[in-house]
């Protein structure tokens, strides 16, 4: 069952209705049952893997806390706790390796990181070990996040599960959550799935020139809408149930530098890498060389986390390289900007920076999307050698599954996305803005949004709605 499937449209209202009807003390147990049902609807065996990871990490965290209380000698206690973390790390990442590269288990990449993050938080004393096994099980299996994140922290989601008043019914939560879910469906079904038709056609046919350039630019939007769509859906579903999840995306394509892009893209994963890999490795505290090494290590690990091909390693390496180069060339870039008088026209400079960052990120997406590294390189070569500007007006652009009218519609939808992201970037959230509008306008807007997803969404019998791209990771 995916969140875009018909089954989910039946499953979710049932879960929500039952959740608010049953007494408060049973609500989280009900959520746990629903979450396991949701997860095991792919494969019953997945549930066993999740249960094993849950049991091992829950016990490990309690053991660490027990050591804190019972081993008085500091060195011995630290050694034992380190041993504990190492053993748990080996178990969790061993499971991740086996279930990612040998036998695929959906969601394993997400909840293993979440569980290890919890272990590290307990180890560092940032969080208390959760005594209630069912609550911890819900923390790892919560159905909006279990398959593709956001990778939640014990200090956020687990803490919310501890407060019973969170489970109280609030109409505002339901309304906001449903609006978020609608936007998530819009991103996934109207934008991502429609763009996928064009991108798949161009990439499958190994087309070069402007076709490949347009397809790659659109792929950047597709992967954003696909993943942000899922994350927004998850946030909305969580909100309806009374829980706030981490916002995974923060207008990433409006970032003026690659390093800022990574602070805005897949924030829960980036934050995890920062807190549990980059900072423990020394972060930027041990000199420039170590800082660059640490950045490179983090992005290479991120590449490996995404998949086992060279293309993912190159994708991660390129992103690491961009950040290093950006840092090294910073003085030169500032000089150049001053030389061209760019510093006096800040807005133009900023737009140029955003465009440049988008282009750089697009290059990395070619490796991410192509079947293999070889194909990606051929595609890049083809972009230059087969470049013909006439493609823009000779109509051939509309022969990849999307006609001219649909293409125009697609561009308008992307403009809408850009406007929403622009507001978001400036911390003006549409949902907050809507609160100031008259209720009739708000209601009409929501109804139109729902209908636009139904009318313009790419789904149903004649279309094979792909699963979310990040399900594969």
């Amino acid at each position, binding site marked *: 069952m995916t969140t875009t499937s*018909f089954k989910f449209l*039946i499953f979710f209202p049932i879960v929500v209705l039952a959740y608010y009807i049953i007494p408060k003390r049973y609500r989280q147990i009900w959520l746990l049952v629903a979450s396991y049902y949701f997860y095991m609807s792919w494969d019953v065996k997945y549930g066993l893997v999740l249960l094993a990871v849950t049991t091992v990490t829950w016990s490990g965290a309690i053991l660490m806390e027990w050591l804190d209380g019972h081993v008085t000698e500091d060195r011995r206690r630290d050694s034992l706790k380190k041993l504990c973390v190492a053993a748990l790390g080996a178990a969790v990442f061993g499971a991740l390796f086996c279930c990612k590269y040998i036998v695929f288990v959906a969601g394993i990449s997400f909840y293993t990181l979440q569980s290890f993050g919890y272990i590290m938080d307990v180890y560092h004393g940032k969080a208390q070990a959760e005594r209630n096994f069912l609550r911890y099980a819900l923390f790892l299996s919560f159905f909006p996040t279990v398959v593709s994140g956001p990778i939640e922290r014990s200090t956020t989601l687990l803490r919310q599960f501890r407060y019973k008043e969170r489970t109280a019914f609030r*109409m505002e939560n339901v309304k906001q959550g449903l609006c978020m879910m609608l936007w998530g469906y819009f991103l996934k079904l109207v934008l991502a799935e429609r763009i996928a038709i064009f991108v798949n056609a161009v990439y499958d046919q190994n087309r070069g020139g402007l076709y490949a350039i347009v397809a790659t630019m659109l792929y950047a939007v597709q992967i954003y809408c696909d993943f942000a769509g899922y994350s927004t859906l998850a946030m909305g579903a969580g909100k309806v149930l009374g829980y706030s999840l981490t916002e995974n995306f923060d207008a990433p394509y409006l970032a003026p530098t690659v390093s800022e892009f990574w602070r805005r893209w897949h924030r829960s994963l980036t934050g995890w890498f920062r807190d549990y890999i980059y900072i423990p490795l020394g972060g930027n505290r041990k000199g420039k060389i170590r800082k660059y090494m640490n950045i490179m290590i983090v992005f290479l690990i991120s590449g490996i986390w995404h998949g086992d091909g060279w293309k993912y390693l190159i994708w991660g390496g390129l992103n690491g390289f961009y950040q290093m180069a950006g840092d090294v060339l910073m003085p030169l870039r500032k000089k150049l900007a001053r030389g061209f008088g760019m510093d006096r026209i800040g807005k133009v400079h900023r737009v140029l920076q955003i465009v440049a960052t988008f282009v750089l990120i697009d290059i990395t997406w070619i490796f991410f999307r192509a079947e293999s590294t070889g194909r990606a390189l051929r595609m890049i070569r083809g972009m230059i050698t087969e470049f013909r500007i006439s493609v823009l007006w000779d109509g051939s652009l509309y022969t990849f599954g999307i*006609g001219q*009218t*649909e293409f125009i*519609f697609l561009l308008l939808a992307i403009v809408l996305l850009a406007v929403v992201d622009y507001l978001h970037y400036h911390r003006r959230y549409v949902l907050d803005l809507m609160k100031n509008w008259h*209720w*009739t306008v708000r*209601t*009409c807007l*929501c*109804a*139109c949004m*729902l*209908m636009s997803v*139904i*009318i*313009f969404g790419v789904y*149903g*019998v*004649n*279309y094979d709605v792909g699963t979310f791209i990040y399900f594969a990771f």
Partner: protein
Amino acid sequence: MMWVHSFISLFKRAALFVTVVAVVIETMNYLYVDDTDEFARYMLHELYEEDDNIDRLYLGSSHVFCGIDPLILDHINGENNFNLSTGTQQLITSYYLLKEADKKHEIDRVYLDLYYNCTAAGLGNLHDYQSIPYSWIVLHQMKPSINKLSYMLNLSNPEYYYLTFLAFTRYKEKLFDLDYVSTVVNAKQSEIWKNYEYRHVARVDDREYVMQNGEKGFRIYHGTPEYGGFYRTDQEAPLSENPITPESLEYLQKIVEYCKEHEIALTWIGCPISDYQLVRNGAYDNFVRQVSELAKEYDIPYYDFNLCRREYLDLSRKEYWADMGHLNTEGADVFTQFLGDFLLAEEAGEDTYRECFYDSYKEKIRDSQEAIYGLEITKFSDYERCIPGISEEEKDEYVIYKVRPVTNVGIEKVEVSIRVTRDDAAESEVKAVLYREGIDTYVAFLRQENGTLYAEAKLKSSSVTTNWAEVEF
């Protein structure tokens, strides 16, 4: 009082939301749902507008609305007859249309046509995706009611509900086709559509087939078969031993029970289908036997007019037929007159028609005079049989057609001749390989050539060619 205020506020919002959604749905349906050529629209409108009580109701598929003229029956039995047949009417549709008509009228008698095409595997698998579009056509014209809702819910698996409840979503492929929208809107702006008139003109070569509304659900169909008799280019599998599907049986039983509950006299009938269609299938008796057994089980009178002796009802003249499954107006006059007299005599308990029926269709055909009913020209894939020793590569170069005369006599009495011409100006003959086996003639020619395959068949005893057809390749 606070909760009253909240409730009113919520109610207002919900009402506005539903209104906006309903307006958008209606607008989309108007723009995209093309019912401008649907006979069901006219027929159901007439049903809803019928003020006089309907005494006798006729249910079935298109060969019923082409074959039974209620005005003639009114004249014969002096009651109000109404033909509530629709194109490819499956038993689920018959059941719900019966209930729809019975809401307003006190129906005394129902004549339900049982057609193997709508009850056997294929269209008889009522809930399959391929079967439900015929119901959508009817549903779209039904007025909102509990009966309609029940029909919608029972029609298909839940995964297709969106197509059933939101008619415009069936036209997703046309979403950005503005020419299509313009055509539909223009047609709906016409007086014909607004006044619920029906006129459909099909042009095949230089011939014109005109269909228009008669009265009380009768469709006037002018025209005679194209070429020298009937011919088909599609394959049809012979009926199985017990061809009626479980889903069809379920609704047949529901119709029987409904009629018993509401004291409606139910009669099963088999409206005339051409001998070409029944002989070509070869196993019509399997259907007749199963329906006869069911009729005995439920104690329902069953009259299959395809088993009528020709001295009572002779529809063998091609001039009576518009195509192989539909009588034209001339044929409908003859059949309706017979049907009216027959039913009246049966109701009166007269034995005028005691000897009217054969026990089986096979018997009827055996007793019929020697004839060729038409031709079947289908693509054939057993290359080895026609061109022994043909290589795999050569198979791609050839196309093979099988020409079979549909007849009640053996090969020794039939003469089939074939001519294959190329489409160029000279109309030169194509070099074709001919292979004969039994009654079948196989014609193989090079795939790269375009032209016409012309086939003729006649009885050797006759000096006149009775059947001919041509297929473009």
